[in-house]
């Protein structure tokens, strides 16, 4: 059984994937952030050139082995440049 998670893309990453938001569908095993990162970098090789952080449900996550649950809101955040 798979799960679906909304994904938001920001800054230069939204240019690379040419989207600001999407719904990711994962089939089979429980997906982790690392699985998502690999899938995105396969689909969009330019992602490998960018430093970015993941947020899940609006909290930064540094441990990419974190398992995703149905409807977790994932955001890909490149370097912040406010102010």
């Amino acid at each position, binding site marked *: 059984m798979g799960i679906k998670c909304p994904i*938001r893309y*920001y*800054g*230069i990453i939204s*240019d690379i994937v040419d989207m600001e938001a999407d719904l990711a569908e994962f089939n089979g095993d429980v997906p982790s952030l690392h699985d998502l990162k690999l899938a995105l970098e396969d689909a969009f090789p330019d992602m490998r050139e960018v430093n970015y952080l993941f*947020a899940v449900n*609006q*909290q930064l996550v540094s441990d990419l082995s974190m398992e995703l649950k149905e409807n977790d809101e994932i*955001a890909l*955040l*490149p*370097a*912040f*440049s*406010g*102010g």
Partner: protein
Amino acid sequence: MIEKTKKNCFHSGAIAAEFIGNSIAKHQTKTSIGAHQIFLGQVRADIIDGKEVKAIEYTAYEAMAENVLHDIREVAFDRYDLTCMHIHHSLGVVKAGEICLFVFVSASRRKAVFDAITFIVEEIKAKVPIFGKEIFEDDTYVWKKNT
């Protein structure tokens, strides 16, 4: 009275000088205040690879940004003896020379506001998920990197 309610910090477009002036005026009834400190971030017409920045377009992961700003406020109120604090950041297009960030802190004494303003501005730059697109006169752009 200490203001601690969660509030929207984002403004569409530039922050007008009148808005800043009105914010100052609103504090004249709070007579326990003896010191204000203001930081204004202004869009700089940087030259990048020979092209001049004419504007920055800001986007933010707003829900997370508001939470982070709320946390910054909480820490600042805990750490410094402030009477009140206001943070306003632009979203959308802000032209070179216009104001994109307005931080305003007030306290009974000057030491607290000097220390707090530095802390708050540095925290905003480092921790709030805001993204600036530097737009050139020919409408090409680069994503801004904070230095």
